[in-house]
């Protein structure tokens, strides 16, 4: 078995943060490779610190290594100083587990969870010595797979991958391994890559872009449909595991030797969210709600803390305070015996006093800051986005936070939401001002940080038809906020770079015409675009120009119901008429309640697949408001540039409407 370690150790000393490349984490598996087994390299195309904690990747890593027909190792995008040195020394991308070259693996599987990493996909392929375009690869090259939330519209990068997997990967990676290991055992002469891809395409949840034809006319997409081959579905349906309890992964969460984001024990307590925030793609595509059994949560936490030595645990999901019986779980975790204090964090979408009460139970010691995400400045606009938090919900939550010892409150908002007026935008400052007023009742100098992201409409949401705010419009709103915020003492305003929002917008709802754009941006050195020190909007604008493509066309214009969308042939289970109705309701300021505790709206996510919610409690949690959102995301997250891939709600997105 070939390891590049001997070559690597000669120069790692001269590289920034060499610990990124050494592996050695507690929980690392160094698998035995063998010719009969399908070997996977799971790649997170961002830095090690961002990629290592990714739970999806860790889950598949364990599952694949438990099977007898597959093995898996991991890799992350080398930082620019490293890739420069690797190219100079002719060293390809490698796994961190055994430092094996990427090209020695059968399958390169990328986890794509944010648009701005797309050029890093190209960078990793190039460093692996694998042809960028799927059509240029032959039987000797690895199969390139993409998974993660971005595969609900993989069209911008469709030409670079061999297949995309939609939805939960737990089961489908096994099916892929099975097909691949069988294919591998065939005599050399009979191996045919095209037939292999055809076989993959027959698996539910697998999309093979090269088997579909995209047709354009007058600068508009008119159809995407299977080429002549048989057995290729017209619409690829996502995969959903119906019982999270059957998949208690990761069993051995990786504990890194060096600092990473979310550096704590993470236990996923449920998947899916039906609060129905209309801007939130994660909520829409992961329906229905599937809770992990309470006892399993508690045992995963206990075993995990013991094994890892962490003193902090996060119960993860899109809105953890909604978990049935969350109070029980929290008190069980907090009253564990052990010799050191354990702190617990609960990313939650709710904004209410109940949640703060739970938070105070969880953070007995480190009461530094609390974060809430009202997302919009006025009740009217919150109805439009279906985040049904009243001003009073927010003030009640803030009051209980300040009264229980928190001094710093952070508020997250989006600007550029549909129907937004300047009054809505300025409502953000009004809410912050009132928050500070409440804070002064309890502290001398309370502080409020307001973070503002620009809204990017996402596929498979009711806002997928909405024309994103232009760069100028977003900037105008930011200045509006900045001027108003200056007059408020104790208020700190932070905003997301509106130029990055523009690029996210292009890619979010883009189509195959963007392949050469991505290639050009990458060629000009446009990697790590989610990092502010590397982001360069000019590369994108120049490349779009050169390809004769208009940002207006991709981002700023509203779509009509009859327009063919680039992801129409891919399904997250959501009926298009449900989404369209929800879009119309949004424009009428109509909210929609959570279907977990009210009758089903037949969105399709359960009804289409013959599954249902797995929720232990038939009623909303005690003390709950109607509230759709609050984020208790902890203060200690590392601030990385523009976007945090693991951010729970659409904070890294942005937009404008007129």
């Amino acid at each position, binding site marked *: 078995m070939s390891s590049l370690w001997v070559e690597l150790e000669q120069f790692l000393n001269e590289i920034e943060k060499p610990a990124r490349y050494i592996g*050695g984490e507690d929980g690392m598996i160094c698998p035995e490779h063998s010719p009969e087994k399908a070997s996977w390299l799971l790649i997170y195309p961002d830095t090690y610190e961002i990629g290592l904690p990714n739970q999806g990747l860790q889950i598949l890593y364990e599952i694949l290594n438990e099977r007898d027909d597959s093995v898996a190792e991991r890799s992350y995008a080398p930082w620019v100083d490293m890739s420069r040195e690797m190219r100079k020394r002719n060293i390809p991308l490698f796994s961190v587990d055994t430092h094996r070259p990427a090209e020695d693996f059968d399958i390169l599987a990328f986890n794509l969870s944010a648009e701005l990493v797309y050029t890093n996909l190209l960078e990793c392929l190039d460093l692996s010595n694998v042809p960028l375009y799927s059509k240029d690869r032959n039987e000797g090259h690895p199969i390139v797979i993409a998974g993660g939330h971005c595969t609900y519209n993989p069209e911008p990068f469709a030409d670079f991958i061999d297949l995309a997997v939609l939805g939960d990967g737990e089961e489908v990676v096994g099916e892929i391994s099975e097909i691949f290991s069988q294919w591998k055992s065939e005599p050399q002469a009979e191996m045919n890559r095209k037939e292999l891809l055809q076989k993959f395409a027959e698996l539910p949840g697998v999309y093979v872009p090269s088997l579909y034809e995209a047709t354009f006319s007058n600068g508009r997409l008119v159809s995407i449909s299977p080429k002549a081959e048989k057995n290729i579905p017209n619409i690829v349906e996502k995969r959903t595991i119906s019982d999270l309890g059957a998949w208690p992964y990761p069993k051995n969460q990786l504990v890194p*030797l060096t600092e990473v984001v979310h*550096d704590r024990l993470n236990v996923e307590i449920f998947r899916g969210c039906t609060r129905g925030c209309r801007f939130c793609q994660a909520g829409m595509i992961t329906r229905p709600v599937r809770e992990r059994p309470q006892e399993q949560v508690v045992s995963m936490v206990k075993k995990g803390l013991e094994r890892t*030595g962490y003193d902090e645990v996060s119960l993860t999901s899109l809105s953890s305070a909604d978990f049935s019986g969350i109070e029980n779980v929290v008190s069980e975790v907090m009253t564990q015996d052990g*010799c050191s204090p354990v702190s617990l964090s609960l990313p939650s979408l709710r904004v209410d006093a109940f949640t703060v009460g739970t938070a105070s139970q969880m953070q007995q*010691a480190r009461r530094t800051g609390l974060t809430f995400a009202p997302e919009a400045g006025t009740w009217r606009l919150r109805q439009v986005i279906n985040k049904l938090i009243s001003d009073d919900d927010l003030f009640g939550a803030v009051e209980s936070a300040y009264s229980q010892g928190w001094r710093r409150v952070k508020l997250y908002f989006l600007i550029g939401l549909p129907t937004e007026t300047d009054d809505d935008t300025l409502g953000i400052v009004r809410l912050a001002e009132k928050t500070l007023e409440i804070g002064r009742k309890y502290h001398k100098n309370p502080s409020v940080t307001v973070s503002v992201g620009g809204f990017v409409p996402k596929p498979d949401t009711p806002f997928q038809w909405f024309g994103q705010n232009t760069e100028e419009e977003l900037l105008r709103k930011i200045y509006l906020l900045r001027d108003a915020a200056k007059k408020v003492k104790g208020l700190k305003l932070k905003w997301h770079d509106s130029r990055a929002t523009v690029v996210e917008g292009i890619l979010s709802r883009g189509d195959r015409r963007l392949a050469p754009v991505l290639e050009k941006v990458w060629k000009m050195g446009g990697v790590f675009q989610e990092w502010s020190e590397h982001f360069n909007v000019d590369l994108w604008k120049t490349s779009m120009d050169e390809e004769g493509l208009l940002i207006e066309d991709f981002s700023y214009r509203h779509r009509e119901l009859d327009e063919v969308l680039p992801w129409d042939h891919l399904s997250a289970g959501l009926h298009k008429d449900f989404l369209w109705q929800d879009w119309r309701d949004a424009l009428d300021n109509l909210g929609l309640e959570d279907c977990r505790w009210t009758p089903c709206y037949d969105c399709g996510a359960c009804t289409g697949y013959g599954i249902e919610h797995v929720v232990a409690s038939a009623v909303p949690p005690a003390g709950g408001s109607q509230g759709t959102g609050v984020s208790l995301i902890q203060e200690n997250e590392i601030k990385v540039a523009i976007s945090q891939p693991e951010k729970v709600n659409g904070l890294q997105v942005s937009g404008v409407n007129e």
Partner: protein
Amino acid sequence: MRCLRVRYTKLGKIRFIGHRDVARIWERSLRKANIPVLYSQGFSPHPRISFGLALPTGFESEAEYVDVYLGEDFFLDAFDEKIIQENINKALPSGMDVLAIGIFPTSGDSLQEAVDACVWEVRVSGTSFEEFEVIRKKLFSSDSLSIERERKGKILVEDVRSQVHSMDITEDHIDGVTILTELGTKPRVLRPTDLLKRINSELRTIRVLRKEQLTLQGNQRIEPLSIELHPAAPAEVLA
């Protein structure tokens, strides 16, 4: 109050992690090993542990130290050094191994302040036995050696000759030599790599291994915890 002093290694791939990473690993490992570390009081309590002189990232070591502050009740309970060592070893990642363990009263200087010199083993290439002998002799026959060091953005020229306590060739290789050198750490740490670069810019260091950290006791330099004394019963170490 007493503390548990542990001498451990940092060898192999793990040499590329930084000092803060090592501290985090110790915090987790002590919890895994169920050692009841004292916590600081206050707003954000943290475990009370302290280290010897920081080791530059990329250097290996057989002489890293950590002092772990423990409540008195820990010593009342049956204190079994062997079991503690075993538990800590199990909790530490590969490349970090416990070499010796002992109990000390906590007093005066922290180890970081007390360390006065380090012994380094350095694998040097780009030279030969004969050539290095000449370099070495020249160094010891001169009474000054100035080195440029950056401190708070300013370049300072300092004489470090007296910090070079000893330097000997221990092995001869086709492309160079292995040396053993004792370098003083006061007033400021002198790194073997900086020293070698200064005395001959052609020299390349391939591997740097810290063999010892020494503290001054009277006019003798001693190891805070010697491996030879291990495994020693706690009482003996205390004496």
